[in-house]
Each structure stands twice: as structure tokens, then as C-alpha cells.
């Protein structure tokens, strides 16, 4: 506890600090001479997720001073709460497992299949080639990955996904933040970029709402910050902007829940568009097929299903029959899941279940059961009763599945059967329903990260975009474990671009 004296001392100090912040700098003689800047910085990065942090840390290591503006009251945006999967071809665990035929090109091959003809192969290749440097940057920063863990995840033809020990991208975000702080990156929370200040086709600064308290737009006050070396837009997607979501993709069921943090609203992207930045693929919004209606956010579901998709099956509760190749990519699975409806059109959440006794003590199971988004049942009968599934059909489905496992062949959906096991009670069960997850669309950039102008289709000056805020990279479907890769990898490219543009 403290006393009055320290309050008064603190107040004096606080007032002095505040006075220092509002010192006006001389106006610039660059055709914008009427602008009164409140502050000048070198490189300005907007957003503190994978992309923003990687750009910041790699820039400061390249000798570029960096200021990171984050509008929220916490760092990291979606990256801080994501599932912690990271695709790294040729990572040491993969090699130790004897997988020696992987490469960045192999990864891009998978990504281009998922992109369904709409991906940017050259960009994906550049990013994939930076996977190992990005992984090593994490290790150097003290990031802990799950020991000896590297598996094949949906849509990939190789086991190449490592996972954070903590099970969330926060494991990377917190460590890069620590590294950035110690190396001199200037991070600021509650700074919301409202607009860009242009000189023709060049970004020269931003209008920032400083002291912003999300979601109250009336909070804080506006300041103008000049960015001498450029502005990097690393603000993520817009899945929480319901109005924009429904404009660009009217087919997206508005009742679909979302995995993203509440600040994923895309206003910086829209502001950039008003100054000529070219948006692409804005209607391509990905739903994660591994969501659970029984929890908030990204949750435990994805990790629990990393067991379920391999060791279990997905069943329509109204029919008791399997609905899909449980190991297919997101779009295929989302479509199959969302086709499960009750007669009135309301969601009939498919059940995914696997053998409880094969995974005793696995934290993916114990925490899911603890937080009541998964359940344990001693028999198919009890499961059928709880979720109102036709028991006879469910029993027949399991019996048939077990014969497929014995034959190592799935004639119904042609699932790869190498990890499949026979099902026997007791079971762990969870319900699935897609959640809106990721925006493939965003600002078009060139291969070096420069934002493209809609009028000239040429790069804008000193304006860069990184991570989910960019568009046209992944085409129709981003593969799992590739958002983390993209955000971290682009951080190795943009600092070089900034130096080249100087």
C-alpha cells in the first residue's frame, strides 16, 4: 500500500510525461507542409500478432527503429489465442522421424491444391522457404515447442506441423514480445490507427486514436504520427466485422460463431482501401471445421479433434452414419458438417468420438472434459441417448468402420487409413460445428510485401502489408498450420524491402 506523498509524486511525474508527449514537431516540407505531426518515428508496424512481431523484431535486427501500435489492451490479436500449429518443412523433429522427402516445394504443392487454382504460388514459395529461419528465430527467442512432436495435419501430404508446448500461438507471441522489448522495439497498446496520411501515392504517416479503449470509439484522442521509413499493415482479418462479412460473403451463415478475438474488425484495411490499396479475394472467408458449439473462441476443440480425426469418426446425429473423410481439408469437412441439419434447418451438430482408454491422461482430453465441451460415455447406448442418435444405425456404423480398419480401406470416403483404429467403448465424444476463422482476402501485395495500388496496379510507396491482412496468397483455402508460417516468414522479407526502398 502507498501513502499520499507517493500519490502526489506520481501525479507530478505523470503530468510531466504527458506534457512531453504532446510536444509538436516541426511541420515537414514535403508537399504536406500544413501537417502538424505530434511525433515522428522510423518504421511503424500496425498490429502485434505473428506478422507484426516478426516484422518488428527482424527490422530492429536489420538496424531499423520500430514502433508497434496495437489497438487492443493485450498484445497478439488472434496469434496470441490461436491453436499453436506451425508448418515447418525439414524441421529437426520431422527429420528425426525419418521424413526426409519434404521440402518447401512439397508444402506449396499441398497449398496450391487447397487453393483450388486461386493461390499465389510464387508468394507461397517465398514464405515456405522462410519456414526454417522463422522456426529458428522462435527457438532463439526461447519459444518452447512440444518435444519430439511433428504430425501430419489436414490437407498436408507430409507430417510437418510442429506445435507449441502451451498449445497456443501465445507461446510465440509472448517470447517475440520479450525479445522485441529487450532489443528496443517500442510497443504501444491502445493505439488505434484511424487513417493513413498520404503524399500522393506515398504513405507518410497515420492518424492514431491514442488511449483507445476497445470497443468504445469515443475513447482516447487523435494524434498524427509521421513514419519516415514506412508503415506495415499487419492487422489481421475482419471476421468479427459482421457488416463487412455479410457484404463480401452473403452466403456465410450469420449464426456461425467465430474463433477470432473481438478486435478482428478490419478497419485499417478499409482505411487503406480508401487511399487506393487494392483488395483481393475479400469474399474468401474460411470457416474452421473443427469448432465446437460448446465453448467460446478457438478453444480446445481443434486439439481434441487432432485425436478424433485420426483415431475416431464423425457421425451425423440424425442418421447415425459417417459424414466425410475425417482427414480431408477444411472446406471439404466444413461443407459436410454444415449439411447436417434437423428438419427445421437448425444445426444437427455432428459427433466425433474415439476410444477413451487409448488416450488416458492426455491433456487434450482431460481439459476438454473438465471445461464441459467433451463427454465420456461407457457405451454407444448412453451416447445415443444423450445426443438422440438412432442407436441401431450407430452400432452398425461402428461395426462397419471396424471392418474398414481391418481392411485398411474406406470405400465410403477413401480416407487414408494408416492412423485408423477399431472403435470400442468407453468413448470420448465432442460436438463439431464450423466457426468463422480466417480471411484469405485482404490487400494485394507484391512478392516483397509492398501494397498494390488499385489505379496503377503498381506498388504504393512505403506501404507494406503482412500476414492475414494480405489477400490472394492462399486462394480458396488456407491450410492448417500455415497462418503462423506466413506471419513469421514475411517478417524476414519486409525489412529487406524497406532497406531496398530507402
Amino acid at each position, binding site marked *: 500500500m502507498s501513502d499520499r506523498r507517493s500519490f502526489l509524486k506520481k501525479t507530478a511525474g*505523470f503530468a510531466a510525461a504527458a506534457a512531453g508527449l504532446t510536444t509538436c514537431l516541426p511541420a515537414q516540407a514535403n508537399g504536406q507542409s500544413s501537417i502538424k505531426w505530434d511525433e515522428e518515428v522510423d518504421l511503424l508496424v500496425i498490429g502485434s500478432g505473428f506478422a507484426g512481431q516478426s516484422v518488428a523484431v527482424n527490422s530492429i535486427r536489420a538496424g531499423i527503429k520500430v514502433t508497434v501500435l496495437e489497438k487492443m*489492451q*493485450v498484445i*497478439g490479436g488472434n496469434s496470441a489465442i490461436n491453436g499453436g500449429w506451425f508448418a515447418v518443412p525439414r524441421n529437426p523433429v520431422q527429420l528425426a522421424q525419418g521424413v526426409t522427402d519434404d521440402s518447401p516445394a512439397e508444402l506449396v504443392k499441398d497449398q496450391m491444391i487447397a487453393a483450388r487454382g486461386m493461390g499465389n504460388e510464387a508468394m507461397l514459395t517465398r514464405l515456405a522457404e522462410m519456414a526454417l529461419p522463422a522456426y529458428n528465430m522462435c527457438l532463439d527467442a526461447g519459444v518452447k515447442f512440444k518435444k519430439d512432436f511433428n504430425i501430419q495435419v489436414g490437407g498436408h501430404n507430409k507430417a510437418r506441423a510442429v506445435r507449441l508446448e*502451451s498449445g497456443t500461438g501465445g507461446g510465440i507471441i509472448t517470447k517475440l514480445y520479450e525479445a522485441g522489448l529487450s532489443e528496443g522495439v517500442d510497443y504501444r497498446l491502445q493505439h488505434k490507427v484511424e487513417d493513413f496520411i498520404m503524399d500522393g501515392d506515398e504513405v507518410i504517416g497515420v492518424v492514431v486514436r491514442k488511449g483507445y*479503449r476497445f470497443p468504445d470509439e469515443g475513447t482516447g484522442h487523435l494524434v498524427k504520427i509521421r513514419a519516415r521509413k514506412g508503415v506495415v499493415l499487419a492487422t489481421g482479418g475482419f471476421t468479427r466485422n459482421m457488416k463487412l462479412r455479410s457484404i463480401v460473403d452473403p452466403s456465410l451463415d450469420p449464426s456461425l460463431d467465430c474463433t477470432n478475438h473481438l478486435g478482428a474488425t478490419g478497419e485499417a484495411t478499409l482505411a487503406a482501401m480508401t487511399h487506393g490499396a487494392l483488395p483481393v479475394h475479400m469474399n474468401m472467408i474460411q470457416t474452421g471445421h473443427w469448432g465446437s458449439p460448446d465453448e467460446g473462441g*478457438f478453444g480446445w476443440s481443434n486439439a481434441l479433434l487432432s485425436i478424433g480425426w485420426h483415431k475416431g469418426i464423425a457421425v451425423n446425429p440424425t442418421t447415425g452414419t459417417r459424414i466425410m473423410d475425417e482427414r480431408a481439408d477444411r472446406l471439404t469437412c466444413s461443407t459436410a458438417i454444415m449439411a447436417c441439419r434437423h428438419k427445421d434447418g437448425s444445426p444437427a451438430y455432428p459427433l466425433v468420438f474415439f476410444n477413451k482408454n487409448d488416450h488416458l491422461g492426455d491433456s487434450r482430453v482431460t481439459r476438454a472434459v473438465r471445461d464441459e465441451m467433451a463427454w465420456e460415455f461407457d457405451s454407444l447406448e448412453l451416447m445415443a441417448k444423450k445426443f438422440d442418435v438412432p442407436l441401431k444405425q450407430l452400432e452398425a456404423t461402428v461395426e462397419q468402420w471396424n471392418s474398414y480398419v481391418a481392411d485398411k480401406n474406406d470405400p465410403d470416403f477413401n480416407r487414408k487409413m494408416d492412423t485408423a483404429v477399431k472403435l470400442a467403448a468407453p468413448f470420448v465424444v465432442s460436438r463439431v460445428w464450423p466457426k468463422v476463422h480466417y480471411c484469405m482476402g485482404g490487400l494485394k501485395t507484391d512478392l516483397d510485401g509492398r501494397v498494390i495500388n488499385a489505379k496503377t496496379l503498381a506498388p504504393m510507396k512505403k506501404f507494406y502489408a503482412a500476414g492475414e491482412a494480405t489477400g490472394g496468397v492462399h486462394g480458396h483455402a488456407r491450410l492448417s498450420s500455415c497462418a503462423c508460417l506466413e506471419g513469421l516468414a514475411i517478417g524476414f522479407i519486409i525489412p529487406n524491402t524497406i532497406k531496398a526502398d530507402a
Partner: protein
Amino acid sequence: MKKIIFIISIALIMAGSATAGDLTEMNKGMKGRVNHEALYDDSCNACHTGSAKQFVDDSACQDCHGSINEIEIDESQLKMAEANPHKSVHYDQGASCLACHAEHQTKKPVCSECHRTWFEEM
């Protein structure tokens, strides 16, 4: 009336049924935390500079309480070890005090957006 509430709140503290962070009626009808009572003698200037509308940053909290890394948390109050909001695997030290705490009203911690069963409104 205010005075009566004030006296009652003091009485409550004496009775030991209010905890350090409880909201109570302060001056000018503004609610505040009982442990900050003395601060309100300085009107709003102990935390706000110039006007009460001015942005208050974390230093207003940290000057007395210390940083997020220094504050001792009573871990027996947590639902489980990993529900320690000052050692979050998502944010660690990268969180403003205001992400979870508010002076003049109750607030749901940012964590409860996803972890619905872990935290209560404070």
C-alpha cells in the same frame, strides 16, 4: 444519501465483509474501489491528468501496485494453476491492467471471452 452510503461502506470494511477491490460510492456520485478511497481526496488528479476524460495508462496503476510481473497473486483464489491471468500463456506481460481491471465499474477479464467458466466479473 451519499454520506450514508459512504458511512455504510466504511462500516462494511470495518466488519471485514468488503475486500480490497470492492466498488463503492465515492465523491460526486462516482464509483471507485474501496482501497483507493484516499486517492479521491485529490479529486481525479491522482490518476487522471487535466480532466477525467484524459487517457490513463498503466503507470497510474503501476506506480503503487508495481508491474504485472511484480504483483503477488493469491494463487489459492484461482480455479486452476493455468488460470493465472498475470502469467497467461497468451499474453504474459503483454497486457494492460485495463484488459481485466476497471476502476469505476466491474469488468469481465479479457480471458473470459474464451474461458467462460474460469473467471468472474471483478
